[in-house]
């Protein structure tokens, strides 16, 4: 690829207890678009995200964020531009929803008034404005997930900041259908502002709806990469996922429709 993306991964190798988890990964995550990572269980999707977050040591390869090697970023500077939603969040202290979302503002030195405004807008974005005063620990799984989405949204909210990046590990887990649509809307909202989005998704139909680029991982290797229509083929699904699926076109929005 000629242009260098917000995230630039070149020839990444990483191992987890002597087992090669990532093998020669090359990937550009361009600004203003969404990239979805798909692949069967154990394909290395979460390992890839962990490598990007700096939680998995690279054996080889280069990892750049905005043209600067990832490990050279100061933690706070990076946190201002890059927000990460992990697969699992455990919070057992009685914070209110509003307080949880405002944790996303920790890296920033913006005034309290502005933070409050951002927190409310972020809650609005994930359809949780009515939960602001509730205790987080009392929410349902799907509501908690939306609040966590609002937290990472609040972390990279400032539109003036260039080169922002949003990383989501299975954000659709425990979301109902209406809120999966909300998730797609949220990704579009940030992509329009020029944010580079990288997300792991299990739901292939959701991936084809929200992603500009789909990356297929299999046993630590990047086996396919491209537009949803080019990647989501019956041949790929049988080769990588080992399923005999039907790929059709969603008459409503023209996106791919995978039926198994």
């Amino acid at each position, binding site marked *: 690829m000629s242009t260098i993306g917000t995230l630039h991964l070149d020839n990444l190798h990483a191992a987890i207890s002597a087992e090669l988890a990532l093998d020669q990964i090359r990937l550009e995550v361009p600004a203003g678009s969404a990239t979805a990572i798909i692949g069967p269980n154990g394909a290395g999707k979460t390992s890839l995200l962990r490598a990007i*977050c*700096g*939680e998995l040591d690279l054996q080889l390869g280069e990892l750049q964020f905005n043209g600067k090697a990832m490990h050279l970023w100061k*933690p*706070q*500077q*990076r*946190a*201002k531009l*890059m*927000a*990460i939603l*992990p697969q*699992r*969040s*455990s*919070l*057992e*202290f*009685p*914070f*209110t929803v509003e*307080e949880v979302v405002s*944790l*996303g503002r*920790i*890296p920033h030195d913006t005034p309290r008034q502005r933070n409050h405004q951002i927190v409310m807008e972020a809650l609005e974005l994930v359809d949780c404005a009515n939960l602001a005063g509730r205790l987080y*620990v009392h929410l349902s799984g799907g509501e908690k997930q939306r609040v966590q989405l609002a937290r990472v949204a609040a*972390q990279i909210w400032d539109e003036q900041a260039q080169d922002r990046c949003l990383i989501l590990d299975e954000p659709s887990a425990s979301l109902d259908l209406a809120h999966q649509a909300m998730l797609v809307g949220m990704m579009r909202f940030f992509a329009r502002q020029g944010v580079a989005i990288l997300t792991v998704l299990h739901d292939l139909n959701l991936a084809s709806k929200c992603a500009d680029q789909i990356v297929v991982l299999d046993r630590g290797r990047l086996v396919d990469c491209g537009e949803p229509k080019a990647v989501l083929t019956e041949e790929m699904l049988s080769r990588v996922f080992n399923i005999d699926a039907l790929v059709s076109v969603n008459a409503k929005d023209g996106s791919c429709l995978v039926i198994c």
Partner: protein
Amino acid sequence: MERLKSRTVIGSLLWLLPLCFLAYLAIGPSLISPLVLFGSSGAEDQVRDQVILTLIRLPRAVMAVLVGASLAVCGAVMQGLFRNPLADPSLIGVSSGASAGASFMIVFGASILQGNQLLGLSVVSIGAVAGAILAVFLVYRLSTDRYGTSVITMLLSGVAIGAVASALNNLFTYFADSVMLRRISVWEMGNLEGASWERVVLMAAVALVLLWRLPRYRSALNAFLLGESDARYLGIDVEWVKKELILVTALAVGVSVVVVGNIAFVGLVVPHILRGAMGPDHRALLPGVALAGATLLLVADMAARTLISPAELPAGILTVLVGAPVFFYLLIRNRALNNPEKM
């Protein structure tokens, strides 16, 4: 439970603490008006009262404030660090680790102890702090992974460390002479009876370190409640914060054990009550628990001095009697909240 504004809670504590402090000075075997301190008529009664206040009650009151505040703050910090409301210096073996370290120094560091009292105290303190650091570090390593702390491992390692510490204590007492024995027995139960100005100065120095270092970690502790990875994603230098917090809290708990012995449950009860009242945000919680911890230990020691007057109870016994039921309640509620395998 409806939450109170943190400003209201802290505001009321700012009134309550000085009131309790004055009451503490006034109440005792003889009733003395704290105003005596400022009189200078030289009457015999007045001089006697002044001596009682400045040499006995005042240092002890200041000690109660310093130790209560420090223990409560350390409890709140450890609970944030472990992401678990059950972490308390006395429950997870930190206090017993400190006692063992202190006894070691009393018995084997005896030659250094001969000289100046403050120097002797600080040698014992070093032992206590080292014991405390070792204990927190062990418990933390054993019970915490990326996603949080396992309560059962945390409490079990506390039991194990407590057992090892008491075995070491027995071993050291075996080698101790009678003076050493008396000093060691002080750790067994917390008691503010021996508060002297030298000890107050030592504890005040430690409380100052807490006051100086902790405010910068308020937001980091909030981020920690989400989990270590999330804290890292929020730009917190997790490893550094952990190390410093473990060091500072172990310092405070260790020295408090040296000056007054093991005062249990203050670090558990106070943060628990305040979190319920005003939420877990450490920016308000840390100053709040400092004030409330100081007040609680003042009141507990006031009760300890007067309940069976003219004899005295160790304040440590009272804090256990108040604290243990709260602990049981927390355990039961925690079990109800969490899934069984988490316990």
